[in-house]
C-alpha cells in the first residue's frame, strides 16, 4: 500500500507544523500556487507505521550478510551515527562564521591529515560527495594540469576493461575519449596493450588496484613509469582501498591523484544508495588545482581555504563543503580504529576473502582467477554451471536471498561470464562465512536436483522475481491518483 493510499483529504497533523496560517502574505497573486501538491495527508502514527514497515522489507547490514563485491559492505558503527548527529553539529549553518565552528573544523582538518597519510598524497580535499564525483574532480584536475602546461593535445584517457562504469563515463563527462585496454588471463592489465595505447594523446590512465577482478595489479610501478614517460598522469580509483589499507599507499605506487570512497573503506553508511563521500588526494604536482574549500590550520585557528587562497583551483563541486556529516562519521571511525586498526581492516578483509574463496573452491565452484590471491574480493564464474544446467549467476543470487543472504555482485566485471563478485569485508565472523558456504552448498545441491526451482527464485521473499522489463517498458515513475 502506498502512503498516498493512506491519505484522506483534510486530515491534519498540526503538531508538526505551525497551528494556523499566518496573517501576513505579500506574495503577488500571479506568483501564488493554486493547485495542491500531491503530498499525503496521514497522521504521524500512520507515517511512522508505514515507513517502519517499509524499512522491514529491506535487507541491510544490520540484518543480513552482504557479500557484495566492490561495495565493501561492512558494519557501520552506531557511535559514528550518534556522535555525528550531536545537536550542535546538526544545527550549525554552513555559512556560520568560522569561529563558531572550530570544533567541527578541527575534525575536518584532522581527517584531511589522516587521509593524506593513509594515501601517501601531498594534499586532500574533502569536497567530493561520491566516488563518481571524486573521479570527475580527479580527471578535471588532470585536464587543468595539462592545460596549465600548454599541453592541449592530450585527448585520451586509458582505462582497463575491468574498470567500474564510472571510469569511462567520467572521462567522457570531462570531454575525453576513452581508450579501453584488455586484461590478460591472470587478471592483470595487458602491458603490451598499455604500451601500444600510450602516446602524445594520453592525458592519463585510470586504474583500480586491487582491481575489480579481485587481484593486485603487480606491475603497477611499471605502468606508472610507462604512463608518466608518455606525459600522462595516473588516477587511482580508491574503490578497493579497503584491501590494502595500511599496507601500500597509492602515492607510493606512483599515482598522481586518488579518490577514496568513505562509504566503503571508512564505513560510512550506504543509506540505501547514498550519501557517499569521496575525498580526493593529489601528489605535489596537482596540488594547485585541488577543489576548494579546504581546511587550513593557522596560528591555532581553523579556516577555509577558498579561491582567493588557491587561484588555480578547478573550483567548487558543491554548494558548501560536500557531505560534511558523512565526513564526520568517517573521522569518528578512523579515530575509533586508529593506526593499528587501519592495518587490521585490510588484513582481515583479505583473510575473509581468501578463506571464502578456498571454501567455495572446495565445494566445486569455479574461481575466475584460480592462481591468484584474492584481495578483499574474488570472482566465481557460473559459466560451466549455466552451460550444463541453465542456472545463471542471477538465479543463484536470487536463491541466496531466500536463504537470508544478500546476493553477491552479479555480472560485473563484464569480462567474466556469469560472474559473482564476492566481498565479505572484515567485520563478518567465520561463523557467518561458514553459514554462507553452507547455503552455497545447499544451492549447488538444489541445482543438481531441482534446477527449475532455483531458476524460479526467489521463493521466500515478500515478492517473487520482479519484472524489470515491464518496469522499463511501461514506465510508471509517479503515482497517479486517478489510477
Amino acid at each position, binding site marked *: 500500500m502506498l502512503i498516498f493510499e493512506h491519505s484522506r483529504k483534510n486530515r491534519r497533523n498540526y503538531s508538526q507544523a505551525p497551528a494556523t496560517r499566518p496573517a501576513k502574505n505579500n506574495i503577488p497573486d500571479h506568483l501564488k500556487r493554486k493547485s495542491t501538491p500531491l*503530498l499525503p495527508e496521514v497522521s504521524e502514527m500512520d507515517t511512522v507505521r508505514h*515507513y517502519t514497515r517499509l524499512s522491514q522489507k529491506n535487507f541491510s547490514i544490520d540484518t543480513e550478510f552482504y557479500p557484495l563485491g566492490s561495495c565493501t559492505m561492512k558494519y557501520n558503527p552506531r557511535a559514528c551515527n550518534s556522535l555525528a548527529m550531536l545537536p550542535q553539529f546538526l544545527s550549525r549553518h554552513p555559512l556560520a562564521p568560522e569561529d563558531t565552528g572550530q570544533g567541527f573544523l578541527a575534525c575536518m582538518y584532522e581527517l584531511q591529515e589522516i587521509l593524506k597519510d593513509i594515501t601517501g598524497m601531498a594534499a586532500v580535499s574533502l569536497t567530493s560527495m561520491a566516488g563518481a564525483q571524486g573521479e570527475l574532480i580527479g580527471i578535471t584536475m588532470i585536464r587543468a594540469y595539462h592545460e596549465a602546461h600548454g599541453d592541449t593535445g592530450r585527448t585520451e584517457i586509458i582505462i582497463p576493461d575491468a574498470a567500474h562504469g564510472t571510469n569511462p563515463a567520467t572521462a567522457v563527462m570531462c570531454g575525453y575519449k576513452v581508450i579501453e585496454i584488455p586484461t590478460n588471463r591472470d587478471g592483470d592489465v595487458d602491458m603490451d596493450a598499455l604500451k601500444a595505447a600510450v602516446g602524445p594523446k594520453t592525458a592519463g590512465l585510470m586504474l583500480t588496484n586491487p582491481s575489480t577482478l579481485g587481484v593486485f595489479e603487480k606491475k*603497477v610501478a611499471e605502468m606508472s613509469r610507462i604512463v608518466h614517460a608518455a606525459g600522462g598522469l595516473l588516477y587511482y580509483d580508491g574503490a578497493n582501498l579497503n584491501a590494502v589499507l595500511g599496507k601500500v599507499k597509492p602515492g607510493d605506487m606512483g599515482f598522481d591523484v586518488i579518490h577514496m570512497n568513505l562509504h566503503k573503506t571508512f564505513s560510512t553508511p550506504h543509506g540505501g544508495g547514498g*550519501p557517499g563521500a569521496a575525498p580526493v588526494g593529489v601528489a605535489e604536482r596537482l596540488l594547485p588545482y585541488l577543489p576548494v574549500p579546504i581546511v587550513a590550520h593557522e596560528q591555532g585557528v581553523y579556516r577555509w581555504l577558498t579561491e582567493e587562497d588557491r587561484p588555480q583551483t578547478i573550483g567548487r563541486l558543491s554548494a558548501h563543503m560536500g557531505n560534511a556529516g558523512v565526513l564526520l562519521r568517517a573521522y569518528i571511525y578512523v579515530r575509533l580504529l586508529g593506526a593499528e586498526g587501519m592495518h587490521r581492516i585490510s588484513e582481515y578483509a583479505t583473510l575473509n576473502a581468501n578463506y571464502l574463496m578456498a571454501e567455495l573452491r572446495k565445494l566445486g565452484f569455479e574461481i575466475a582467477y584460480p592462481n591468484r590471491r584474492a584481495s578483499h574480493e574474488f570472482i566465481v564464474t557460473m559459466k560451466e554451471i549455466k552451460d550444463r544446467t541453465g542456472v545463471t549467476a542471477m538465479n543463484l543470487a536470487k536463491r541466496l536471498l531466500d536463504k537470508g543472504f544478500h546476493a553477491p555482485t552479479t555480472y560485473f566485471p563484464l569480462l567474466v561470464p556469469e560472474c559473482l563478485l564476492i566481498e565479505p569485508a572484515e567485520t563478518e565472523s567465520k561463523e557467518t562465512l561458514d553459514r554462507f558456504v553452507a547455503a552455497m552448498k545447499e544451492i549447488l545441491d538444489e541445482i543438481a536436483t531441482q534446477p527449475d526451482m532455483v531458476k524460479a527464485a526467489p521463493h521466500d521473499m515478500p515478492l517473487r522475481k520482479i519484472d524489470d522489463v515491464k518496469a522499463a517498458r511501461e514506465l510508471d515513475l509517479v503515482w497517479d491518483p486517478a489510477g
Partner: protein
Amino acid sequence: MPFIPHTEEDVAEMLTSIGARSIDELFDEIPAELKTGKLTQVPPGLSEMEISRLMYERAQQDGFYLSFIGAGAYEHHIPAAVWQITTRGEFYSSYTPYQAEASQGTLQLLYEYQTMMASLAGMDVSNASLYDGASALAEAALMAVRQHRTSRRILVPQTVHPVYRSVMRTIVRNQAIEVVEVPYDPATGQVAIDKLDQFAQEEFAALIIPQPNFFGVLEQVDALTDWAHDKQSLAVAVVNPTSLAMLKPPGEWGRRGADIAVGEGQPLGIPLSSGGPYFGFMTCKQELVRQMPGRIIGRTTDLEGKEGFALTLQAREQHIRRSKATSNICTNQGLMVTAATIYMSLLGPEGLYRVAAHSHANTVALVEQLEKLPGVKKAFHSPFFHEAALQLSVPADKVLNRLKAQGVLGGVLLENHYPDLKNTLLVCATETKTAEDLDKYTEVLRQALAASA
C-alpha cells in the same frame, strides 16, 4: 579488535583452509618495494567512550546561536520522527536497491518520493536524487545541452546562487559548454530584462530561472519561461522546495511550463549540518526522462502479478552504458531522500504550506521592523519569499561581529559575491523564529548600529 570478530582460533583455522602460514602471506603478490605503508599521522585508536567525550567537547565548543542565515541552506523544524525512522538500520545500513526483491522498502519509498517531488514541482517525473542543489543545476545544464543538440551555451542570471554558478562552471567547462551570465537589475534585484533582451538573437540551450532568487526576490518566472521557449531554449527552474507550497510551481510557469526543475532538497527535513549531506532534486517533463541522470524507480509487478518496485531506465546509467552513459553519477543521496519523504508525509500539503507561509511572514515582519531602524534600508523593491537584502549605513562586517557576540548570527554579506552590494546583509527568518526572536534581532542590531555609527 574493534569491529573485527575473529578469535585466534578462527584465524588459525582459516589460514589452514587457505593453505597459508600467516595473514601477511596473503599479501605476497604486492611487490615488496611498494609496502611502505607506515602510518605516522593516524593517532592510536580510541575507545567509544573516549571518542564520545572528544566529540561532545567539540560540539560544545561550537555551541548554539540564534541564526538568521539562509543563502541556500535553511533552518526548519524537523519532526523527531523523521530521523528516528531514517536511521533505522534497515534504511541506514542498506545498499543501493539493485536486488529489488530484497529492497522493496527503499524502492517503494523512493517511488513515493518521486511522486511527491514531481507533484510539488508541478512536473511529470522525478529522479531519486542527485548530490545537492548546485550539482543538480550543473546536471540540468548538461541535460539541456544534450536535449537541445545545437547549442552548447547556457544563459544564467546573476540572481542564481553564486556558488551554484561556480559549481556549474566547474562541471560543464570540461565539455566545452559556455556559461553566459545575465546581470541583475540593481533596483529590483531581479534579472535585468533589458540585459537579457540583448541576447535575444543568440542561441542558447537553456535559460536558468531561479525562484526565489539568491536575494530572496521573486522573479517574473512566466515571462522568463516564455522568453526561453520563444527562442527554442529550455527553461530550467532552480527552486526552493519549501516555497513550492506557496508559489506557482515550475510546471505551470508561462505558457508551457519549465522543462526541468531542480533545487536543493535540504529544507525538506535535512539538518543544516555545516553543509551536508543534503540532496539535489531533479524533475522534468516526461519527454526528457531518458536524458535525466541518476537513479529512477519504476512501479511494476513480480512474476505473480503482485505490485513491486525496481530501478528502471538503467540503460542510461554508467554501470550499464559505461562511456555512453547519460552521466557518470552512481551514488545518490538515498538516506536524505528517505528523510525528506518522511518529512513531506508528516507535514502534508497544508503543513508544508504553513511552514512556507510562516517563513515568509516572519521575514516580512523582520524586514518591516528592521527598516524602521535608522541606517537600515531594503536593497531591492520587489516581493520576496523568506529572505531579503538589507543595506546598512555602516560597515556590515563589524555589525555582524557585534551581533555574534550577542549570540545572533545576523545573515551573510552579499559583498563577497556581489562587489556592488556594499554593506548589504542577506537575512532570513524561517518558521522557527518567534516574535521574541525578531525583537531580539531588532534590538541587537539597533545597538550594533549605534555602536558602529
